[in-house]
């Protein structure tokens, strides 16, 4: 028994070393801009850079739009599939996996081919290109968002809860917003944060559509600076971890989760 515990700890240590080693390396490097001492100069330089603020704000806004529109599209699709078209689930599963198989470069090229000319001509204006970028991100994030929402819906009895709501006089929209969505809150949050993490660092779409996003900014910065890209990597990690912690905290507080039924 004791032997097994020691082995378990050994593998955990090895895994942690593999994961945290490079992270520690990047952190240490990011703090060594001033020779011979540890400092936050690289972080200050990044935060002072107006291009950082602009690109980060832009990507955050695009990420929020992607989350809102993506959730609307994917939640309603997944809900309908669970409720009325369970036989279509394999097809929907396949479609949502396509962005894994089709490279982003091919996808964005297809987008440009179709939407840069009439009748859409979206790339003619910055707003149109922003919309195109947002839909591109919805497609890119779809495998994660759909799977996360699908898992949430599988965890509850969608059909019976919907029918219970209907028998009490509620319509589809009311049931979706007051019964279904609150019960898949954790799944929605994890879908949203995964989408946020993908959009914030995405390069190909933003670069080929020539939008001032955070991904291209990071690449540009890496070309002519040494310490700042490392500082940016650490900041990105911190942001992602904060998002994960928020998912955990909100999920833990969800009513009806993790509580044991008492005896009659």
């Amino acid at each position, binding site marked *: 028994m004791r032997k097994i515990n020691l082995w378990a700890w050994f593998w955990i240590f090895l895994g942690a070393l593999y994961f945290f080693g490079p992270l520690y390396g990047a952190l240490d490097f990011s703090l060594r801009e001033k020779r011979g001492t540890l400092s936050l100069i690289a972080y200050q330089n990044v935060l002072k850079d107006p291009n950082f603020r602009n690109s980060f704000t832009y990507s955050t806004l695009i990420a929020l739009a992607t989350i809102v529109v993506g959730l609307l599209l994917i939640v309603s699709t997944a809900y309908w599939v669970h409720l009325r078209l369970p036989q279509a689930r394999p097809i929907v599963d396949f479609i949502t996996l396509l962005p894994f198989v089709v490279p982003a470069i091919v996808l964005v090229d297809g987008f440009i081919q179709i939407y840069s000319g009439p009748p859409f001509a979206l790339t003619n204006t910055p707003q149109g290109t922003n919309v195109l970028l947002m839909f591109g991100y919805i497609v890119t994030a779809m495998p994660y968002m759909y799977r996360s929402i699908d898992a949430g819906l599988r965890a509850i009895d969608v059909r019976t809860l919907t029918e219970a709501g209907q028998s009490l006089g509620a319509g589809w929209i009311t049931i979706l917003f007051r019964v279904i969505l*609150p019960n898949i809150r954790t799944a929605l949050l994890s879908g949203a944060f995964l989408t946020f993490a993908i959009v914030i660092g995405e390069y190909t779409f933003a670069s080929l559509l020539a939008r001032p996003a955070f991904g291209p900014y990071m690449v540009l910065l890496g070309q002519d600076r040494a310490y700042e890209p490392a500082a940016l990597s650490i900041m990105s990690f911190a942001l992602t971890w904060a998002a994960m912690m928020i998912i955990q905290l909100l999920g833990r507080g969800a009513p*009806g989760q993790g509580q044991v039924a008492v005896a009659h």
Partner: protein
Amino acid sequence: MTHLSLSNVSKKFVETFAVKDFNLTVERGEFVSFLGPSGCGKTTTLRMIAGFEVPTTGKVILDDVDITDKAPNQRNVGMVFQAYALFPNMNVAQNIGFGMRIHREPESAIKERVAEMLALIHLEQKGNSYPSELSGGQQQRVALARALANRPQVLLLDEPLSALDAKIRVSLRAEIRSIQRKLGITAIYVTHDQEEALSISDRIVVMSQGQMEQVGTPFEIYNFPQTAFVASFVGTLNTADAEVVDPAKKLIKIDGVQLETAEELDGRQKGDKIKVAIRPERLNFVSVEKKANVLDCTIENITFLGSVVRVQVTVGGNRFNMDTFNNPFLELPKIDAKEQITCSREAVLVLKN
């Protein structure tokens, strides 16, 4: 006065009829159970009343209004589900008040009604609890209160006790019946448990393969089953092939032994093959000399069931069960002993098919 009626209702899924030519009228305040095995169409019929399924043909009329094509949320019908279906994100009080909030009733009225419902189900202290903090029985009582809070015209219960353990099932079914009587609400109850249906209902609809086999009071269903299916499904029953001897005198023959029945044999001819049934509790050992309805038998097995002792006997080529009350001072026959059993003419039931 007819409150709910289903006329010529059928439901076809692809090529198969789940329900076929279903006709039923339910009086106001009546408690009607749909009883049958899995796949007999009882839940589909209930779902057509609730509006979750649209009949392929036929009409559903509630209080003289045709609700056949109305959406479920447009019908004033309360439903209790087997899986409780309480909303996990809402506490008990919010669950019960959900329907009233949907109908935009004043908050004071909702609060009052929720308190009334909590008192009705004896869970006054649980208003702030979440469903996951309640036992199965408590959750189902909350589901019942939630369905009743809206003052529905009909209460539909889809196997509401199936997920509960035996003891709670018995106490809760009595509670459901008592609440239904108290409120005078019309209730349709789906179950595959014959004991549940017999104990709770004003009338039972026995269903098989999408069709009604028999409609009647629990007393009629149990004592006078009209078909072989009802006879075999409700209670334990001895069935045997018989032959008509004299239709006028109501005489039949089982394995050469002549029996008299109280049932009419109109339309039957001498020599016609029929199926008869006798309840195990209607059979007795012959204690005094008797000439009619006496069957020679061999004791095959004796099973002690607590208050009842079940004796298995063979009569010619038939095997019959005979139930007698357990009496510790009465000597039971030995296995393989030759005995005589008898029953009254009223106990010999002639089945329709």
